[in-house]
């Protein structure tokens, strides 16, 4: 399955590398558009020194820790976003009769290697923030864990979104509020949000475990909302708990899909 995935990814990459100039340009432009969010953070901190108790470098750390897993998923999983297009065009039927899992085929569908620019940008910001903050080295083991957790959480979200498109075929844009909205939400310290919203994204849709809860541990800070200390380490568990309904929903979607038969 993994081998098939990478074979498909490689095929799409070779296809897009047929136009090298366009490919290079898109890499650079991906870097630039991703940098706009950082530009917003920098503009905000040109006007203030702290935002809801967090300094510029701390916010950049949270941004990097959310953007890195997000951009990885955006590159490798988000292609599943096109389920509704496939349903409308009737191409989902072709996908289903091939002897490879539909999930693997759709996540590799029209794989876009030039999103590498965005991953690179997120890495740079995270690297800068880690260096600038002078973090406690005993706590940095959490950083790779939180990136992995984030990858699983965002992948689950996209899968859930893909599954929802079997129902919301005409309005796939709703899904963006949860995927791209998830990135927008996690870029900033949760202390700026209302208590209800934070409870929602901690206990219902576990976005708080992408970077906020583990990030508090890495930064050595207390939660302004007063959640207990052990929540900082629950990220991997939360990611698995979200993956389960996502996998089930995807399975349900595929099983109940009815072709128009034309």
């Amino acid at each position: 399955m993994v081998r098939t995935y990478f074979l498909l990814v490689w095929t799409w990459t070779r296809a897009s590398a047929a136009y090298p100039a366009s490919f290079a340009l898109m890499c650079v432009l991906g870097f630039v558009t991703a940098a706009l969010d950082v530009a917003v953070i920098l503009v905000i901190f040109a006007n203030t020194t702290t935002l809801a108790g967090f300094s510029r470098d701390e916010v950049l750390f949270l941004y990097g820790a959310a953007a890195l897993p997000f951009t990885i998923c955006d590159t490798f999983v988000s292609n599943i976003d096109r389920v509704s297009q496939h349903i409308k065009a009737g191409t989902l039927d072709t996908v289903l009769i091939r002897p490879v899992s539909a999930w693997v085929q759709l996540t590799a569908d029209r794989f876009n290697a030039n999103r590498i620019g965005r991953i690179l940008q997120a890495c740079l910001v995270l690297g800068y923030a880690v260096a600038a903050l002078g973090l406690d080295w005993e706590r940095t083991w959490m950083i790779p864990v939180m990136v992995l957790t984030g990858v699983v959480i965002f992948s689950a979200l996209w899968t859930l979104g893909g599954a929802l498109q079997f129902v919301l075929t005409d309005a796939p844009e709703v899904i963006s509020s949860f995927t791209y909205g998830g990135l927008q939400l996690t870029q900033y310290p949760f202390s700026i949000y209302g208590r209800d919203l934070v409870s929602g994204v901690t206990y219902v849709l576990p976005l708080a475990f992408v970077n906020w809860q583990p990030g508090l541990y890495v930064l050595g800070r207390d939660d302004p909302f007063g959640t207990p200390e052990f929540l900082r380490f629950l990220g991997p568990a939360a990611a698995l708990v979200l993956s389960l309904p996502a996998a089930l929903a995807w399975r349900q979607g595929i099983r109940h899909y009815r072709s128009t038969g034309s």
Partner: protein
Amino acid sequence: MPSPTPATHNPCLPSANPCPGPGTLRNRALTHRRCKTIPLYARLVRYGFRKHATYVGAALAGAFTNSVFGILRAYILIALWQARPGLAGYDLIDAVTYCFITQAFIGPMQLFGGGLGIPERIRSGDIALDLVRPASLQLWSLAEDLGRALYLFIVRGLPPMFVGAALFGIFVPTDPGHWLAFLTGFMIAAVASFGWRYLVALSVCWLVDDRGVAVLSLVFTTFMSGMMVPLHIFPGWFADLARSLPWAAMVQLPTDLYLGKGPVLETLALQAFWAAVLLGLGALGTRAIRHKVVIQGG
């Protein structure tokens, strides 16, 4: 030559008379039924409106997403304005209003690009048909686009404002003159937005692949327009520069008109200036592609 007698002529067939009188079938078949200019464009505005009204579901989904992002951005701005009250001459309510009105502009101003069918028509060659129509391609597209903007203003623009009003409370002007200024500014902004996107679309004629230009345009229409953060809080001279560029005319200037910040007439004049410049460049571009397009018979 004597003309055929009317008695032998079958009235169902076109008359053989080369100069048919008014009202005959042949006359109707040969004479262009040209709409008068103003009714033609008014009709195109209506068609643009109706074309988008077909996709209510997609527009409402867009309104939902715009509202969700509005809520998330509002919290950021609230945190900033709590740290710096009165920043940019906005109070807290102004900042929240700014946030939701800019979200409301995404649809009508088509800030993420697109909205015109021109790039696909250039690639497929259909543009040749559009260019031989007895109406200007630019004005034709403008009329349709204004219809689209009007529809999205209602369906994608109003919901985020209601959400903002319900959750946080927003500023609503009460003075009719104030509304008049805002609505005028909004109309000019829609024209300026069209002018810019039309230029981006025409570039396909020379570049074939429009993705690069589209991304570049996205940077300008989101960041430099004041959609992401108010242009007033950009550092130093950059703020003044950004506020005098054409993209400010699409978001920041109409927003300030709504909030009642800054001089009304000067703001409208700056917007009108950029709208005129962009339309002028678009007219030159249209003329250039008329010379570039080659219709290969068949």
